[in-house]
């Protein structure tokens, strides 16, 4: 198991140093957020390398593990040596100290958050002891695909013949699980559970880091994020929805409009857009819903660059998306050219008919409305409408500017899911019952981030400095 843990750590640390070497920093310069982004990019990049190894017929085996470890160690070393050149400058800047003292309320919120996080961590552990293979979709789809990759190598495409395994979904999660097994040398059930737990931790770190962990609101956000059973239950699920949630919120965290002046800086725009594109691209490499995120966040990027008069910066976002889009395109067009069953067989006339059918809208709303109200699990019912209302109200206030873009993308994604429900040829009740809770979970972290995205007082002056110095 220690080798599986090393398999996760190596690319994450390499990604951390590559970010430093390339002087790519996250908005606000938060180390917590940087670590989360590095972890996500590391897992994502490692899955792409694994995909190349599978396609080349050298997966799994000691050759792959040795070459993979050497690659990440080499990248780590190279990036570390490169980053050392400007380390002294960053170290001098990071010595800036904060003067604000915490009040009793601040301490209380932090202590409460730690208690909530501890309880939320207990849920996946308890569930793992009861369901080591994960929930239904884990063994029917994601871990099963990982087994094909681990056991059959380049012949994994045989899994396409299994209709319930959703062959059209991309491979980030199965590849990551199979890679951990390759390092461990065995199909440990703890490996996908570890991966899921890491994505849970990265999601929490992203939301809290984006909202600045030195501020109490970040700790409130962390508590609100993990308190519903739906969240911790999904950490235990070992499915791809939690990684999706992570990539969505991380990509949107890069695009937050917390300080318009900072966006005028070429370095800030380059970093934020490149990282947002890469993280958004990884979401498309995780599940089909990632394409919806790219479409919605692409509109947000267009608005951001036009607003700041730096339309040429959109190229950085496209540059971030492009590598993952190439992999997804190869996967979708060459390896698995299948139409997802939830939209298969619908024609133009049929689509229009369902889109304008009041009966269809009524049927979808009748199923979604109770879910909307009850989402969250025991004693968390109502948290979804409350969080949505909070985000909407905050976005209307002048100091709620930073969450507007995030909220807009979340709403567009929810509208996209709603349209799929309108158009699906599958049994609507079954479709809503088996997917709606997970789909909401994908945008829940971003919604919490938007609901607590209160602008910094005086951010216009302070943020560029914070961004440049690279600390929290």
């Amino acid at each position, binding site marked *: 198991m220690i080798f599986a843990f090393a398999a996760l750590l190596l690319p994450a640390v390499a990604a951390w140093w590559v970010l430093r070497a390339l002087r790519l920093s996250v908005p606000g310069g938060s180390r917590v957020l940087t670590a989360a982004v590095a972890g996500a990019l590391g897992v994502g990049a490692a899955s792409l390398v694994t995909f190349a190894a599978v396609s080349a017929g050298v997966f799994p085996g000691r050759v792959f593990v040795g070459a993979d470890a050497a690659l990440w160690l080499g990248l780590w070393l190279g990036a570390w040596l490169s980053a050392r050149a400007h380390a002294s400058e960053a170290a001098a800047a990071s010595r800036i100290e904060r003067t604000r003292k915490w009040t009793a309320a601040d301490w209380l919120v932090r202590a*409460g958050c730690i208690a909530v996080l501890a309880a939320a961590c207990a849920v996946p552990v308890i569930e793992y002891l009861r369901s*080591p293979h994960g929930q239904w979709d884990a*063994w029917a789809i994601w871990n*099963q695909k990982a087994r094909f990759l681990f056991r059959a190598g380049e012949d994994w495409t045989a899994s396409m013949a*299994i209709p319930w395994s959703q062959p059209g979904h991309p491979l980030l999660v199965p590849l990551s699980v199979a890679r951990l097994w390759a390092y461990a040398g065995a199909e440990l059930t703890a490996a996908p559970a570890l991966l899921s737990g890491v994505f849970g931790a990265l999601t929490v770190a992203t939301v809290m880091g984006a909202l600045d962990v030195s501020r109490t609101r970040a700790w409130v956000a962390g508590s609100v994020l993990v*308190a519903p059973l739906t969240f911790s239950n999904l950490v235990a699920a070992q499915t791809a929805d939690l990684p999706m949630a992570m990539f969505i919120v991380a990509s949107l965290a890069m695009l937050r409009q917390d300080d318009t002046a900072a966006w005028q800086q070429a370095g800030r725009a380059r970093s934020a857009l490149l990282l947002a594109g890469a993280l958004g691209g990884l979401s498309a490499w995780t599940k089909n819903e990632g394409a919806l995120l790219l479409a919605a966040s692409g509109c947000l990027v267009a608005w951001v660059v036009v607003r700041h008069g730096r339309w040429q910066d959109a190229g950085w976002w496209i540059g971030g998306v492009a590598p993952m889009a190439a992999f997804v395109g190869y996967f979708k067009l060459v390896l698995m050219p299948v139409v997802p069953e939830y939209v298969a067989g619908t024609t133009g006339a049929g689509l229009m008919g369902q889109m304008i059918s009041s009966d269809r809208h009524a049927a979808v709303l009748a199923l979604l409305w109770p879910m909307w109200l009850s989402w969250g*699990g*025991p*004693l968390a019912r109502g948290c979804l409408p409350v969080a949505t209302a909070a985000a909407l109200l905050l976005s209307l206030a002048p100091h709620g500017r930073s969450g507007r873009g995030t909220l807009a993308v979340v709403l567009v994604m929810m509208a996209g899911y709603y349209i799929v429900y309108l158009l699906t040829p599958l049994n609507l009740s079954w479709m809503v019952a088996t997917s709606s809770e997970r789909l909401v979970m994908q945008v829940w972290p971003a919604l919490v981030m938007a609901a607590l995205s209160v602008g910094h007082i005086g951010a216009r002056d302070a943020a560029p400095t914070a961004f440049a110095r690279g600390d929290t």
Partner: protein
Amino acid sequence: MLWALVAAGAAVRAALAMPVDPMGQLESEFLPLRPYLPSRGEVGYLQAFENAGSDEAVRTHYAAQYALVPRIVAVRIGQEYVIVARDAASPGGDSRLDGYFLLRRAPSGHSLYRRLAP
């Protein structure tokens, strides 16, 4: 914060009340058949003679597939090897298995049939 604490506590309580997932057990029941199957390719799976669409029947089929990856366990007859889950064949002899002979029976009751040579 108080709400978050209470909700997180309720989540732990709900997790403790969750039943044990049978997948580990179901998967292990098919493993004794694995050495008698080809390493790749498609294997037949006999659909239960009654309640074929029940959650239990579907879960058992999915468990067979999960256990026997990278083989494809397809619900049809005609392949050289056919897996017959416990209680899937109709009692007293199932005509769908005409032309097959019993190759192996696992302790769980699941069986592997092989087509008689033509």
